[in-house]
């Protein structure tokens, strides 16, 4: 199998590409990773949005949108997120390959140049970001934070995460707070932009029907003009143990959202990680998992009850939506099923089902640009990069004893419950 290599094209700037003409599109993404610094989160988070609306060459929102239309509806996506203990600013462009363009345009070049212009040449006025652009993006980012509240499943998960991290920076929102967003000023943002180019860890990924050489040299050249001497590599820390905490909130909802966070102490690059992932799948990762079969099918308590494992932090999340009167029934059953695994009550069939399902997902990764990018970016802290197929082989070799051991490391940390407001009859 071909070894995947992450090339260094400048200090702390990595380039990883897997060209594949089977795709009708190509996608180039730049991720900038920086430590989560509470006082800078909002300023930094504003950058991708601000820079995604205009650049030096396309100095106006409408002009830039028209350019994207001309490039056959190319998509420019920029956002701020988190990866372990880092805040990540991402800029991504996707478009069709030149083969399908009406006039056979060179799309790798056109898309690459547009992305480069967005990142390296913002639309400045008097040397800083434009006040009106910033006003617009502040408003929109605040509205985005507000809209997280509308999806109760997402909202409940985020609240649980905040509690779990107990005020440490990695529990913060990647957007910071509305108050700090509203305080941002153009001069400070320009400093943040310079700092992002100079000192962030940068991961550039290119997939699909793309011209690797052209894209790589475009960005190598762009970074050759940047002073990268301030770069220092990032690391992610595990979460220390502490007693169980609980929180309940009430809102006018018809269905309660229960989120439970468990610590496992098993995180990248631990050898036990594949076992922990299989354990999570046996527990609640598939329709043949313990949670699905018991909490949903046998007890009819919910429509969804599933487990997810976060490999960077070693956290196992369980989420479910239930009626108020059934919350403790569901919680008890979830804990009971965990105990079953800890006591080794895991059948060969359950293990096989979990492994097959995981391998099926892993072997599907190479058919989607999104999945490929997610797969390789998730290994940003890994010492050696592995392909999805290699990961599938690791999953296959996990034993029942390892699964039971991984389960025995799991302890409940945080329980969050969003409940129906009391005294109302729905």
């Amino acid at each position: 199998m071909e070894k995947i290599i992450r090339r260094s094209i400048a200090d702390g700037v990595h380039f990883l590409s897997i060209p594949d003409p089977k795709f009708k599109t190509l996608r180039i993404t730049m991720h900038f990773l920086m430590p989560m610094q509470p006082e800078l989160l909002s300023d930094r988070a504003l950058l991708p949005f601000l820079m995604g609306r205009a650049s030096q060459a396309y100095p106006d929102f409408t002009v830039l949108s028209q350019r994207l239309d001309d490039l056959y509806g190319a998509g420019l996506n920029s956002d701020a997120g988190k990866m372990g203990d880092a805040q990540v600013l991402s800029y991504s462009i996707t478009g069709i390959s030149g083969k399908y363009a009406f006039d056979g345009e060179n799309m790798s070049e056109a898309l690459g140049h547009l992305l480069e212009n967005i990142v390296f040449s913002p639309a400045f006025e008097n040397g800083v970001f434009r006040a009106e652009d910033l006003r617009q993006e502040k408003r929109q980012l605040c509205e985005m934070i507000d809209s997280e509240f509308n999806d109760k499943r997402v909202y409940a998960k985020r609240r649980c995460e905040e509690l779990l991290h107990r005020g440490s920076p990695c529990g913060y929102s990647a957007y910071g707070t509305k108050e700090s967003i509203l305080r941002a000023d153009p001069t400070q943002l320009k400093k943040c932009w310079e700092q992002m180019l100079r000192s962030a860890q940068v991961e550039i990924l290119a997939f699909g029907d793309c011209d690797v050489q052209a894209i790589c040299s475009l960005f190598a050249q762009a970074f050759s003009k940047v002073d990268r001497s301030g770069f220092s590599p990032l690391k992610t820390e595990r979460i220390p143990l502490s007693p169980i905490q609980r929180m309940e909130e009430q809102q006018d909802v018809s269905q309660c959202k229960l989120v439970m966070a468990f610590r496992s102490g098993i995180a990248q690059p631990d050898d036990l990680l594949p076992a922990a992932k299989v354990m999570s799948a046996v527990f609640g990762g598939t329709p043949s998992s313990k949670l699905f079969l018991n909490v949903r099918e046998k007890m009819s308590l919910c429509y969804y009850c599933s487990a997810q494992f976060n490999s960077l932090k070693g956290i196992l999340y369980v989420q479910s939506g239930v009626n108020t009167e059934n919350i403790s029934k569901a919680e008890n059953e979830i804990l009971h099923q965990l105990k079953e695994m800890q006591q080794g009550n895991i059948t060969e069939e359950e293990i096989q089902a979990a492994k097959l399902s995981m391998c099926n997902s892993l072997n599907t990764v190479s058919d989607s640009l999104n999945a490929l990018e997610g797969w390789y970016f998730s290994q940003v802290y890994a010492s050696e990069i592995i392909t999805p197929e290699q990961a599938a082989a690791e999953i296959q070799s996990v034993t029942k004893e390892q699964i039971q051991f991984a389960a025995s490391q799991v302890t409940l940390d945080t329980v969050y419950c969003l409940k129906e407001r009391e005294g109302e009859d729905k």
Partner: protein
Amino acid sequence: MSFTEKVVSPLAGDYYYKIHHDSGLVIYVYPKEHNNSTFAVFGTRFGSINTKFRIQGETEIYRVPDGIAHYLEHKLFESEEGDAFSKFSKTGASANAYTSFDTTCYLFSSAQNLYESLQILLEFVQDPYFTEENVKKEQGIIGQEIRMYEDDPQWRVTFNMLKGMYHTHPVREDIAGTVDSIRAITPENLYLCYHTFYNLKNMVLSIAGKVDPEKVLEICDKAFHQQETPEVERIFDREPETVCTHYVEQNLSVSMPLFQLGFKEKAGEQLIPVKQLAAREILLEILASDSSPLFRCLLDSDLINENSFDSEFFEGPGYGAYLFSGESKNPRAVEKEILKELETVRKEGFSSETFLRAKKSVYGRNISALNSADSVANSMASLAFSGRELFAYLQALRDVELEAVLEQLQQGFDPEKRVLSVIYPE
């Protein structure tokens, strides 16, 4: 004898097979030889709107409970020997199903054991097993699914709009029905719906990915036999051209108001031809994409945000509407701007540059969608249910002319047939 057509698209550089199987079933196979995975959909033209029907040769008109198509979808996974998920757990395929207004589809994605998984899919969909006990058990699960949607503001804003737009058409009812309506679902009425709508002449099998058409045909020959199936007459009460109301609102636990503005269009049981559909998609792009004057005006007046504003043409048997949706502090003002803009464009038209840009953008998006086996298989199936073909639609987008788009503009968007639906915070 089965009859196979090879359908080629020079635009996409791809081909697919359309097989008219002996049994009456239409089968689509779209090979993607460099893929790792395959996606299969087996669906029937039976959705939430088909609650009133007559079987040819009978006089009785059947009226079945709202939500029955979706309930049937859940129950079909069970058989006397256990549920389909446990069979798929032995192949690793990831299986699922969905019910829309006019179809029900069963699907899986697999990167291994494709043909075993295909057999399971074809078998379980053809093997209903409904008992008093297993039907009753599902009430708790679907009840929670309905509750989940009751809290989903996006879902509510749409259904409130549809209730305001349609007097009698069942598109105004929730796809899953209500907690009350599903209580009337019994093994008897499930079997009635099953035997009426799950016959091969009413169904489509659609497969895209790493697949050999010969092997598919071999499996289908074994799985399907010619059936004597009566024709079914789908009955809809007469729907006036007017709307019930221009405005509807609801309060939910949200942080910012959400809106959906719909314009009711003429619609028959037969859907419009692909050429008209292509013109409508491009028209919406011209009117409301990121590069449109309308979008810019709404954005600059702080009335919408990039994250949520969207437009689409929504259609099915007996219903059709242009929709604009998003979050806004002032949905009434958004409505006013949209009406104003429609009046302006109707008077002034738009330039050929604007038209070409929109066309390129829509075309590029449709080419991009061919990357994914999932999207290809689903599109082939849903187009087939509407009497359309995938590549014919792509060609229509390439060929559409300015005049055709202007014609759609003149015919549609009657302000008298608009409905604004708003979800306000509590």
